[in-house]
């Protein structure tokens, strides 16, 4: 069973190699190779789901169990992230089949896609912080290139900006990891939990560096400058992956792993996290209010919603952690759905400007309805998934005595409804402009992932007690290992 762990990294790498070798053959070959690769990764993830949820911790070592080897491990938290990554990538790869027809050299796009998948899997499988860092680097390199994939002026600019800020973040991580190792003598999460790393003198210095590094990767305000450019420049399936999966894996996951090891709830650090979270919720939402570009609005919404997840993490009670993880999963689903919808509108109409769109519900019914379902989820209408997770985060904040931050969460939820109402009215309702009379619905490979994601928005809202109990609780236990 443990052999599945390296396979989760090797399979996408091999798929990337095969795609690179076949880049001169037909585009259909590339489509099939990429989708087979993501399906295999989903299958491998499902293969270990049962045992891991049953309480077994899978481990795999190469080069001995030393700090220099490749050490992989899966616990509840890694499994949750693996499920989000593999299913998110599968949806995006199916969506890419038709969407990427308008770009050249599709095979090269899939190569980068697969490298990103391999890197993300490595991040969540790494049993120590060095392996995690290597995964972050691989995924980030692929991601920088994907942002610039359209090769227009603004895409290149966005990518350059992202490269500079992303590298500064990586350097913060490297120095934080180096200093932490010098103090603790270990980089393994398990050993750090065993030795009470938070009590070691001087740990605050690497902790600040790691917080800045992960903060830059996860785009918390005030580290968010790169995100709206990068996420609106990438091709839509990549935007969906970036917002829905990528920043959680390379930013939030590291914070969660180190939460009880370094940033212990109740300490000064958790206050810093709480302030960052409220800033992200409010600034992201307020900036989203004034956006005119569909994808930029969604990107600012990501900043705001990531603030909610961070709020739950910073409170740090078991309920808050479960709520934060649930909101993370919900956000992954509805944000992929929104970006797919925006990509579908952009592909069929040729514009992303909210002001020049309108009335598309009659012409693109599936895109319209699925986006509306995503809207209900993000704005917190019962019984959609987003309602339960947002409410649980606010309830957990009140329970933990952080009433002020609960109020911030509630205000953020109201602003969220405001900007998404504007989005819905501007794109899908109102009068249809003359220029858009002949718009048609997108092809089936783009519509199918949207329908599945919309179904997941509703489904998760209905089965949430079961989901929290059986899937999220093992992840919460994994986070609280060091407590």
């Amino acid at each position, binding site marked *: 069973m443990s052999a599945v762990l390296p396979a989760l990294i090797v399979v996408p790498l091999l798929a990337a190699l095969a795609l690179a070798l076949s880049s001169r053959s037909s585009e259909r070959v590339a489509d099939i190779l990429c989708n087979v690769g993501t399906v295999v990764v989903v299958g491998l993830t499902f293969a270990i789901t049962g045992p891991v949820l049953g309480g077994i911790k899978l481990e795999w070592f190469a080069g001995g169990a030393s700090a220099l080897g490749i050490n992989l491990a899966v616990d509840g938290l890694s499994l949750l992230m693996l499920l989000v990554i593999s299913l998110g990538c599968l949806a995006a790869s199916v969506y890419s089949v038709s969407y990427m027809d308008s770009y050249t050299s599709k095979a090269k796009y899939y190569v980068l896609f697969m490298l990103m998948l391999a890197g993300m899997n490595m991040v969540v499988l790494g049993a120590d912080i060095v392996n995690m860092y290597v995964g972050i680097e691989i995924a980030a390199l692929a991601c920088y290139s994907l942002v610039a994939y359209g090769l227009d002026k603004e895409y290149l600019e966005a990518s*350059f900006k992202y490269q500079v800020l992303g590298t500064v973040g990586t350097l913060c991580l490297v120095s934080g990891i180096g200093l932490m190792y010098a103090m603790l003598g270990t980089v393994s999460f398990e050993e750090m939990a065993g030795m009470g790393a938070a009590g070691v003198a001087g740990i605050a210095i690497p902790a600040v560096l790691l917080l800045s590094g992960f903060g830059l990767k996860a785009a918390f305000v005030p580290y968010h400058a790169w995100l709206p450019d990068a996420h609106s420049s990438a091709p839509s399936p990549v935007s969906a992956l970036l917002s829905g999966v990528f920043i959680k894996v390379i930013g939030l996951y590291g914070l969660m792993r180190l939460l009880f090891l370094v940033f212990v709830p109740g300490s000064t650090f958790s206050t810093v996290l709480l302030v960052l979270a409220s800033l992200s919720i409010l600034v992201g939402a307020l900036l989203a209010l004034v956006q005119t570009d569909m994808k930029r609005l969604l990107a600012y919404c990501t900043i705001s919603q990531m603030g909610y997840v961070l709020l739950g993490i910073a409170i740090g009670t078991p309920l808050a952690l479960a709520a934060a993880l649930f909101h993370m999963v919900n956000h992954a689903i509805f944000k992929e759905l929104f970006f797919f919808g925006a990509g579908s509108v952009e592909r069929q109409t040729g514009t992303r400007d909210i002001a020049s769109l309108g009335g598309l519900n009659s012409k693109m019914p599936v895109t319209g309805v699925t986006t509306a379902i995503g809207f209900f989820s993000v704005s917190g209408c019962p019984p959609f998934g987003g309602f339960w997770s947002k409410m649980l985060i606010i309830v957990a904040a009140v329970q933990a005595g952080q009433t002020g931050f609960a109020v911030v969460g509630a205000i953020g939820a109201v602003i969220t409804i405001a900007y998404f109402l504007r989005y819905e009215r501007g794109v899908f309702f109102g009068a249809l402009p003359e220029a858009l009379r002949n718009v048609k619905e997108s092809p089936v490979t783009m519509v199918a992932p949207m329908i599945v994601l919309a179904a997941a928005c509703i489904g998760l809202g209905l089965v949430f007690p079961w989901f929290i109990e059986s899937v999220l609780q093992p992840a919460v236990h994994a986070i609280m290992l060091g407590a």
Partner: protein
Amino acid sequence: MSQLCILSVVLVAVGLYGVLLKRNLLKVVIGIELMVLGVAGLVVVVGSGGGAVAEVSQTVGLIGVIGGASVVCLMIVTAVRLYEKYGTLDIREMRRLKG
């Protein structure tokens, strides 16, 4: 050891100055490269004393240099592409994206 530490910190500071204040894309890239080297040096120097095993710190530093080198390659490629589009490397000319 302390001199090496100071050298690393100075490298990072000079690099940061380049990234924050220079208007030429290539100078920004040079700044990033200097920061990478400074950070890698810092990790190796700090990890060579105390209870740590020097090899692990050296590995972390080396991985940092490799990652930095790959990113710098990508940045140069992007800078060349931007030069082709704009005919200049001046950041002030490239303000199509709003914050």
